[in-house]
Structures are given as structure tokens and as C-alpha cells.
């Protein structure tokens, strides 16, 4: 029963990672850039919903929407101002710019809200007790997992069924060819950033609901973990990000419980390394050898 409760908390944590990783993987797939600022968008989402709830006293679901709207706009603005001018620049230049954006977001948050952690009011409280109270699952966990599955299914349907989604896949395969087929590449990339950032906002709310301390660096580690999850599952692959996120959360939770709290991140990363050695393109990624 103890194992089961660790497993459930792992799935719940993994679902948060998966939601972030889904955004990450889409942005990577289309922009081919490691967007290190993604984690900080999570933090912004967290603060926005926090402000909506604490200062404006809006209901939980409205504050989630507020967070999503702000982050979507933020994502579009970041893309337009910082990344779009660098479309043809070397990837390292884009990476450093992303790091600059990440610093910018963190330090803006530091100036606005200060360095002290804020305690995040739960969006949903309450716990479900099963087996005569031997196993308890918080409603937040249930909602997190449900949201994650819905988002994954939604994104899969979106990218395979809709015109915009297909345009997105076309752009990630070959931007030049997509443009020749009449796809507006810039708009498609903006849309991808918008979706990724909205997902980050949702993840921010869910993350802060489970771990209710909010500070300017809240997003960094989950951002890196989610990136790891996306690579783990095969970067660019939507089901891969979902699977990678879940596995990462479960491994982390179980490692914390049974091996070592101190080394839990190390264990997660060690698993990633082993997976990449066996499957160099991640669990569900396609390995494309260079053509000679």
C-alpha cells in the first residue's frame, strides 16, 4: 500500500512533467531550439494564478485561465522579440538568447514579488480516501493526471487532424518546403509557442498546487526535468513526451522513497543516460542517420 501511494504521487508528479514536456517537445520540434526560458514561463503562470486568487479573489478555475492567457501572450511576445530575429542564426546563439530570456523572467519576478517563497493557495483541496483510509489520493493529483491525459490526447488529435496541426508538423519536418506549400511558417511557430506557453501555465498551477512554495526559481528545475523527460521519450514526439514525463515522475518518486532523497535527481538523470545509450533518440524517437 505504501508502494502504491508512492507510485501515485510519482504519476501525479510525472503528469506535471509530462504537461511541461509536451510544450517543450512541440517547441523543440518546430523551432529546433532548447528553450531554456520554458521553465520560467511555468513560474510566471504560477505567480499569475497566485495573484488572481490572492489579490483579486477570483475562483480557482478563473485564475488558471488568467495564468494561461498571460503566459500565452508572454510566449508569443518572447518568440516575436527574441527568437524570430534569430531564425537563421547558429543554434548556440538562440540557446544563449533563451538563457537571457530565462534570466530576464526570473529577475523580473524577483523584483516584482521578491525572493521569499510564497505559499500557494490550493486551487482544489481535499483528498480521496480509499481502502479504509489506507490509501489517500489528493484531488489535485487526480485532476493533474486527468488534465495530462486530456492534453496529450488533444494535442495528438490537433496535430494529426486539424489544418493548423498538420502545418505544424510540416514546419517541423522542413520549413522551406512548408513555406513553398503556402504555409505561413512564422504564424505556425508563434502558434506553437502560444500552445507551449499555455500548457506551461497549466503546469505551473498544478505544480504549485502539489508543492505549494512559489518563488522566482520555482520553474528552473521542473523545466530542466521536463526537458529531460522530452529527450527521454524522444524529443519532438508527443506520446514520447507523455511517456517520458510519467516515467520520470515515477522514477523520481520511487527513488526518493526507497533509495535516497539526496540522490533522487542523480538517479533520474542516470536512467536518462542509460536510456539514451540504448536508444540514442529516446524511447519513441526516430533515429535518422546522416545521409552520405
Amino acid at each position, binding site marked *: 500500500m505504501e508502494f502504491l501511494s508512492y507510485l501515485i504521487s510519482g504519476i501525479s508528479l510525472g503528469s506535471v512533467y509530462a504537461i511541461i514536456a509536451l510544450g517543450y517537445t512541440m517547441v*523543440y520540434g518546430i523551432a529546433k531550439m*532548447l528553450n*531554456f526560458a520554458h521553465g520560467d514561463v511555468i513560474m510566471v503562470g504560477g505567480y499569475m494564478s497566485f495573484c488572481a486568487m490572492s489579490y483579486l479573489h477570483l475562483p480557482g478555475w478563473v485564475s488558471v485561465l488568467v495564468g494561461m492567457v498571460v503566459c500565452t501572450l508572454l510566449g508569443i511576445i518572447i518568440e516575436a522579440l*527574441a527568437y524570430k*530575429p*534569430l*531564425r*537563421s*542564426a*547558429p543554434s*548556440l*546563439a538562440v*540557446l*544563449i*538568447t533563451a*538563457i*537571457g*530570456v530565462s*534570466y*530576464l523572467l*526570473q*529577475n*523580473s519576478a*524577483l*523584483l516584482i514579488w521578491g525572493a521569499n517563497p510564497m505559499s500557494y493557495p490550493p486551487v482544489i483541496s481535499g483528498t480521496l480516501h480509499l481502502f479504509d483510509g489506507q490509501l489517500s489520493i489528493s484531488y489535485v493529483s487526480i485532476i493533474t493526471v486527468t488534465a495530462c491525459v486530456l492534453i496529450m490526447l488533444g494535442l495528438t488529435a490537433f496535430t494529426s487532424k486539424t489544418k493548423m496541426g498538420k502545418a505544424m508538423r510540416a514546419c517541423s519536418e522542413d520549413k522551406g518546403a512548408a513555406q513553398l506549400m503556402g504555409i505561413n511558417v512564422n504564424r505556425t511557430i508563434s502558434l506553437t509557442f502560444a500552445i507551449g506557453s499555455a500548457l506551461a501555465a497549466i503546469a505551473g498551477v498544478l505544480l504549485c498546487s502539489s508543492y505549494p512554495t512559489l518563488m522566482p526559481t520555482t520553474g*528552473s528545475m521542473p523545466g*530542466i526535468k521536463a*526537458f*529531460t523527460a522530452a*529527450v527521454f521519450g524522444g*524529443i519532438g514526439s508527443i506520446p514520447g513526451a507523455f511517456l517520458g514525463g510519467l516515467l520520470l515522475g515515477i522514477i523520481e518518486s520511487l527513488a526518493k522513497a526507497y*533509495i*535516497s*532523497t*539526496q*540522490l533522487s*535527481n*542523480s538517479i533520474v*538523470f*542516470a536512467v*536518462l*543516460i542509460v536510456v*539514451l*545509450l540504448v536508444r*540514442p*533518440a*529516446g524511447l519513441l524517437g526516430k533515429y535518422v542517420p*546522416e545521409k*552520405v
Partner: protein
Amino acid sequence: MKMKKKIAWSDYMTYIGVTIAFVIVSFLKKGGALNRSQLGLLVPICAYITMAISLNLTVGILGELSLGHAGFMSIGAFSGIIAAMSLVNVIPYDGVRMAIAMVVGAVMAGIFGFFIGIPVLRLRGDYLAIVTLAFGEIIKEILTCLIVGVDAEGLHILINIDGSKTASDLNLLEGGKAIIKGAQGAVGTKTIASFTAGYILIMISLIIILNLIRSRSGRAIMAIRDNRIAAESVGIEITKYKMMAFVTSAAIAGAAGALYGLNYSSLAAAKFDFNTSILVLVFVVLGGLGNIWGSIVAATVLYILPEALRSFADYRMLMYAIVLIVVMLATNSSKAKDLLDKLKPAGKEEEQ
């Protein structure tokens, strides 16, 4: 051989430039023109310049993105501290202990670089980058669990996996001393790092890297960067030369770590996190990939910048972020390039 001479000339200019800077700063230091906080920056600047030079070998010369370079720095720092502290009673000369610490730091980081290189160098591109990031974090967490002490019997090392152990579990003999105390990191370190040691380290790193680039091995490394398949086709052993670059880079980072570590009386492993790796990467990219002199200048300027922005108080890191973004946009965006071209007098196209 115009370009040949130009290359040799630029190498010498780098040595001369570093030396002149060293001499000037030494005079300022002697003359008391530097305040306490400025003096405190000297050794870290030397350490970070060396870090930037060494990371440029991996990122600029070998062409592989490494996001975990701080890991090698921390291995060097901690092994250097252990070496220097356990020799306190054996070798009375600070300079000699400092040199030994840097060598030990370099060797340890080199050994780790080799073993980490085995899996890492099999991967490519962003996958390689994420694995270096992973190793950097793993090293940090493991060092956080490390408890080391020294007494008459020699070194005592504990790995504090479950968080229950403390320095007293080392059971040191009378007169023994704990050097590293888990999450607290190194404590009570005798600070023996000096600006001169930093200068010597930079010069040695420069000689190693600049001479390497102009040699057969260095050409092989750059060939792999430019075109791996072609390099293979002319008989270059890819793994061997990738490893050579990676291990050399790690070893120099280790020496830089030892210098850095022995500059502070206490130092936690958490200092060498992902952000430190990124900090050094920013130096390398802004200085120019493969441009060693650029790395030196960028490391110096960007390390001083946050200090210089102190008058902006709380806004300084924000300013730093903005400077970073603006510089990247100005130097890399196509629009900025067009603008620069228009400003340039016609017909005077710059080379390369």
C-alpha cells in the same frame, strides 16, 4: 605564408595581452589602487577565464555543446582542496601546495572526463548536451553527499547517501580535521590561491590549447567538428580525438576548479550547478566559438559586469539579462546584420 604568420601572431598577441593585463593589475594591486571587493574578484576571474578557455575547446574547437562543465570544475575544486588540506603539515610552501592541488584537480577531472566521455561522446547534438547537463547535476549531488576528513592515519571518506551521517561519523583521531562536510561543502579551507597562480594557470592553459590547435591532433579535432564523415574518410579516429579534446577540456576545468576552491575558506558543491555551467557557456559564445582571446575578454567583462552594475542594485541581474539578449540579437539577427552592412562604407567588405 600570410595567414600562417597571422595565426602565429595572434597566438603571441594573446600571450602578450594576458601578460600585460597581469602586470598592470599587479601594479595596481601593489599600489593599493584596488579596493577589497575588486581584489576579491581577481582569482575568480582567472578561474573563470580558464574555464572559458577550456570549454571553448569542447564547444568551439570540438563542436560539441556541453552544459555540465561546472561538474569538472567542482571535481577539481574538491580534489584540489582535499590535496592541499591534507598536505598542510607536510609541505609548508603555499605555492607548492597550490601547484599540487591544481595538478591533482586536473588529473581527477581528467579521469572523470574520460569515464563520462565514454557514454557522452557516443551521442550527438542536443542529446549529447542534455547528457552533459545530467552528468553535471549527478556530480553536484554526489559531491553534496561527500564527507572527507584527514588525520594521522590518512584520508577518511564517507558517502552520505541517506542523509544521516555527519562529519563525526568519520571517527577521526585526535588532531584530525574534517575537510568536506556534505551539503556544507568544504569548510575551514586554508586559502592559498593567488593572482599569480591564476596568471600561471591561464598561461599554461593557453599554451596547451593554442599549441594543440596548430598541431596534428588539433587539426583532427577541428576536422571532426567541420565534417565528421569526411574526417572518418581520411582515416581519423573519431572517438580517440573527441576523447582527447573532451578529457583535455575537463582536466583544465579541474585545475581552474582547484584554483577557485582554494580561494574561499568555505565552498559548497551547490555552487557548481547548472547555472555556473551556463555562465561559462555564455562567456564562450559571446567571445566567439573557437576564439580563445574572445573567451578571455568575454569572461573578464561579463564576470565584472554584474559587479559594475552594482549601482543599479536590485536591477543588476535584470540589466545583465537584457545586455545578454541585446548583444545576441545585435550580433546574430539578420536584420541587425543588414543594418551593419548599410553602415559600412561600400566596397570595404571585411574578410571572412
